């Protein structure tokens, strides 16, 4: 069985999995990082979004072998110190309902704000449009994004 060494949340970890295994399942089943959520498995819903070299990517459609050599950050990595302004705003505006999609929403937004702290409405829409939430928290996400952008985070 092939072995792959991945850099996840700044830690090197070796996993024994088959080529073609989606990174999502490696994170969840092999590394115990269950904050990255499975929902559609086809890159449609964005619930499994992580950062690969700082860019928001859907971990359900990345094969493990393609992640070798990249720096991978999961929600657990972003939340390590709980100090990212997104978390504070998310709590303050009580964005979350069931919470299942929120790691994907937050990872998507964090990557966007990292690249551009003052994104336009269109850039925000383009980033967040394909992260689905069935509870309907979009309005609160929008309010949170507006607040973060206004504060220049």
């Amino acid at each position, binding site marked *: 069985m092939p072995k792959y060494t991945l850099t996840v949340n700044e830690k090197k970890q070796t996993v024994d999995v088959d080529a073609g295994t989606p990174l999502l399942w490696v994170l969840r089943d092999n590394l115990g990082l269950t904050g990255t959520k499975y929902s559609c498995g086809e890159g449609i819903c964005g619930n499994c979004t992580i950062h690969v070299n700082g860019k928001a990517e859907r971990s359900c459609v990345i094969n493990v072998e393609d992640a070798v050599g990249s720096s991978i950050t999961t929600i657990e990595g972003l939340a390590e110190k709980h100090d990212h302004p997104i978390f504070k705003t998310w709590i303050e505006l009580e964005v979350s309902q069931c919470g299942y999609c929120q790691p994907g929403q937050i990872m998507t937004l964090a990557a966007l704000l990292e690249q551009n702290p003052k994104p336009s409405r269109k850039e925000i829409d383009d980033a967040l449009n394909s992260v*689905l939430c069935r509870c309907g928290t979009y309005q609160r996400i929008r309010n949170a994004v507006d607040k973060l952008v206004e504060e220049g985070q």
Partner: protein
Amino acid sequence: MKNSNKIKRRVFIKVVGLSGGGLFLASYVPLQNLLANTGDDPKIFAPNVFLKIDSNGIVTIIVHRSEMGQGVKTALPMLVAEELEVDWDKIVIEQADVDAKYGSQTTGGSTSIRRSWEPLRVAGATARVMLITAAASHWNVSSDNCYAENGFVINKLNNEKLSYGELVDEASKLSIPTDVKLKDPKDFKIIGKRIHRVDTPDKIYGKAKFGIDVVIPGMFYAAVSRCPSFGGSVKSYDAAKAKNISGFRTVVQISSGVAVVADSTWRAFNGRDALNIQWDLGPNAKINSDDIHNKLVNKSKADGYEFESRGDINKNIEEEKILDAVYEVPFITHAPMEPMNCVAEFKDGKAELWAPTQNPQNARSEVAKALGISEVDVTVHVTLMGGGFGRRLVSDFAVEAAEISKAIKKPVKLTWTRQEDMKFGWYRPPSLHVLKGAIDAEGKAMKFSHHIIAPSITQFRFAPDLPPKDYDIKEGTVGLEYQIPNMRIAGSIIKTPIPISWLRSVYNTQNPFAIESFIDELAFAANTDPVEFRMKMLPDDSRLKNVLKVLAEKSGWGIGKILPKGRGRGVALFKGYDSFCAQVHEVTISGNKIKVDRVVAVIDCGIVVNPDLVEAQMEGAIVFGLSAALKGEITIKNGGVEQSNFDDYEILTYNEMPEIEVHYVKNTLPVGGVGEVGVPPCAPAVCNAIFAATGKRIRKLPIRLDS
């Protein structure tokens, strides 16, 4: 009551009646070494099943309903804490396992707060009264000279204080009062406040454990292949290819299909996909959506069973204008973001489950039945769930996991794929609505007749011979507040083999669509403003009328009456779940594209326990209702569901989110339900808005402007 202090390390259980109705179990449970580091023997005061206080002062409140995003993990403890007089920031909140001692644990029908409003406050108040009595007796003063605040009892005479922890021992010796007085709403300190959700931080840090995240020692992973047409079965299967998948453990046939067990989720999926199964497609393999539609149409030709009537719908009225319309609604599905899953361990004749379920008591009985064991041998731990919307009231996923674990004699996690969630759901049934109405020369509504034709969930799931008087399809059709002199409400059911069940607001997703759209048709025929038309038909003391009045004001109805071309606003009302809701939707139409710009919602749900949670539920209900109205459709081909993921079963996206405003009617009336009441007005309000914008009346969902 016995002096329990003398009897250590034994548990007393006493059943007492409380004024709140229902039975409570009282227990005094001395536990040893609860705090191992101190070597202490903290005692626990638990006068009922919803709270416990230990002698170290830790107050634990037990949540007996399931948290699926609606906020019960926060709102239910608020009810207990309010009466208990504790410091909110110091309480511990615990999710209850399945147990009949809690009464119903079914999280559905917008009942969690409504049904707990009294018993949970009584639970808190009972403990408070006992703690005060204990303190009074300690100080040898009258209870009237003592009060409770922030986890202490205070002696008014000298301001001495005793903490609840210090009173555990004394309070436990007291008999449980049965007539405790509840607080006056004007004295509420917690109820009515925007208390933050207790589980938000863990959820956003990725630490919260949903069902799909549960891992137990020695656990395997499973995936199930099910027959592509409903009602089919396994003829035979060949697992040779599956066995070649690395990490493959075993393959077992279970009641719903064939399960592959492997050492990871992904390998279980691959193993499942590698199965070669010969299906007996069963009796429904040729059924298509059209067949079901035709059944509905055929039944619509009869009069249906009459649920309710007044006056004479057939009487001729001078100069009446008669309207006829037929409305139709398709199957839709819940599609919560977290697919179905369950962890199960069958060992020594007993089953233990970790299940994202809205219905642990049903999961327990279904699992017991499937495994041929007694219900007492089934434990269900309720996990967080990534949305429910009614889907998790059905226990199919729990039964599957339990069957697999029993067969392989190992703990197992079953995970469904999104495709399976779409294809093997329990769908909101389709329906057809035949409406007739008449207005007189003055534009007054004189006649209203509604015949709903739909499959019955109750008939399908529980009662094959359901008598017409018990048809569940009447939900939302009867008891309308509109004062129309001649009315007839009737229903007919059809049978289909497609699994159907409750989806957020159930038949209230369909009936109010037809009713409130048709009322709009009557208003237009009467050349009357739709709000004014409704106002005239509602009795003056009606809470619904008041809600409509507030809505007209808050939405600016009538102001800027003539909207620019392509824009329109529509209104719809709903009462149900002991609550009242009215909404105005504003739309912009460009070509065949619909954009819902703004939704103003007013709700009267009596006392508001937590405004933030109510607003969130209304926002969520509106998104859910709009997703259904604008996009939701499950279609049937060859006895199975055609849709398979969010690309062919779409839901509202971020950029489609309208601006939502939620307003309340403030009062101190009994608490009403909130989770569902916001869904029903969406479809009719948005369709009425489309009519206002374009003159096109939408009578079929989902809304398609090009057809």
